[in-house]
């Protein structure tokens, strides 16, 4: 596989309120393309992302582009070029769309053009309070906050959760574009989206990594999928598969 890694995690453990939620996770994220982090509900995918960012107390080794970040506070890690799209969006409800974006802007060289082309709706709604947006629109704000900055890595946690099929497609399209700008570690339950976007998968179970490999290989093995995710693979005729429109293609590594 790709010898170049943007993120390398070794023996990561983490706890919330004194309770261990990540046991012993080791994973690598290549410097290009989308890597999907999969696992059943409650196995610790969100906690793994939060531990990488230092949002919860953690132990273990975390290298971002070869530099240890496991002792740094969250804001420093993010300033190194890590974009974060949290589960449940976490937009600032009492701030306008424009204020949400302005707050997220990390430096003078922001990609306003990217945000404007991907989310024209947000430009129109810039004066609207984020709390009054629909779920899909809030997800756009959350994505835009991350994509606004030049990133070396994007951590995206369940961006299609609870969204209508049409919006799932739009989010997937935005992620395709985002993946051209920076590698992504993506937590995603919608396997059709995973198939469309991810090159590699990392599967977590019981607080540990139980499978790593090419996405297609994993998704095409119904046994593996059932064993690790407890669901059936995404048969082409399933509703979920229809949720991803033509725009989203499997992301290959740039030459």
């Amino acid at each position, binding site marked *: 596989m790709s010898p170049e890694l943007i993120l390398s995690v070794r023996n990561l453990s983490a706890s919330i309120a004194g309770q261990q939620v990540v046991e012993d996770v080791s994973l690598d994220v290549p410097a290009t393309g989308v890597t999907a982090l999969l696992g059943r509900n409650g196995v610790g995918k969100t906690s793994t992302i939060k531990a990488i960012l230092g*949002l919860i107390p953690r132990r273990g080794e975390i290298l971002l582009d070869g530099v240890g970040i496991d002792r740094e506070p969250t804001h420093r890690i993010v300033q190194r070029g890590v974009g974060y799209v949290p589960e449940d969006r976490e937009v600032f409800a009492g701030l306008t769309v424009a204020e949400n974006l302005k707050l997220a802007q990390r430096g003078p060289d922001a990609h306003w053009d990217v945000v404007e082309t991907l989310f024209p709706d947000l430009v129109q709604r810039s004066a609207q309070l984020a709390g009054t947006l629909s779920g899909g629109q809030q997800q756009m704000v959350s994505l835009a906050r991350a994509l606004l900055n030049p990133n070396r890595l994007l951590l995206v946690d369940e961006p299609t959760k609870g969204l209508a099929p049409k919006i799932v497609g739009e989010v997937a399209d935005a992620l395709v574009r985002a993946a051209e700008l920076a590698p992504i570690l993506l937590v995603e339950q919608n396997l059709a989206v995973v198939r469309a976007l991810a090159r590699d998968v990392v599967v977590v179970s019981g607080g540990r990594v139980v499978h790593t490999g090419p996405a297609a290989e994993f998704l095409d093995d119904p046994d593996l999928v059932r064993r690790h995710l407890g669901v059936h693979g995404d048969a082409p005729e399933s509703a979920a598969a229809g949720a991803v429109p033509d725009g989203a293609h499997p992301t290959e590594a740039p030459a």
Partner: protein
Amino acid sequence: MSTVLLLAITGLGLGALYFLVASGLSLIYGLMGVLNFAHGAFLMFGGYAGYEVSRLIGATTWPGFAVGALAGVLTGAAIAALTELLLVRRLYERHIEQVLVTVGLALALGALASGVWGTDAIIITGPDWMSEVTVILGARVPNNRFLAIIAAVAVLAGIVLFLKFTRYGLIIRAGVENRSMVTALGIDVRKSFTLVFAVGGAAAGLGGVLASQYYTIVSPHLGPSLLIFAFIVTVIGGLGSLTGAAIASVLVAMLQQFVNYYVFGLGEFAVVLALALVLLIRPRGLMGRVAA
């Protein structure tokens, strides 16, 4: 009629003092989750600083008063910023320890003031205008009430503009909503913690100078007595809400004034009753958000 007017304007003046304390309490709680029991001590030192500096220049002159007020503001801001940097900073998310430290600091600063200025109240004088009255529709209103009201409105406007139009204001508003997401956007939210303490301390320091004009004394008891009402105001207004604090300041002070006048001496009781009612019917306060 003139009695009602006098009570109303005096109530507004008292509400202004409450607001100058409650604004800082509310912001500090909203952003950092810290109940700052030392806030009354910031006010008290503001009052003493104003007294000492005015005296040097001439307590009954306007320049003396103005420079004294400035000294009160700076003293309040400085003590508050130091409190955050030296004590509270180490104790974020440790609520019991925070309470112990801020209560301890309040006691220590109170004892320090008693040591320096004595336990007896010091009589405060100001420019003559301050102790004169203005007659409005037959009501003889002491002028220092107007000054307190104008100052509180200016502070409210200043803080609102700061929150609305500056980068730090944006960070503080976002941080009150969701602090960890602010750090996850690459922002060192701790820097704004010190700033919020300083702003709150400055308002309290100004409150100290104006309270000593209002009561015409400054004493070590000035802090604790105003702090109690400011806490009540903050809870009724909704912890973390500046607008809520402003509205509740006026409501509480009015209630206190009117009940005290018409039902002799029961004003404080009425305020506590109002607090209990709000906690029963609307525990998050008038303008408080539902905890996430």
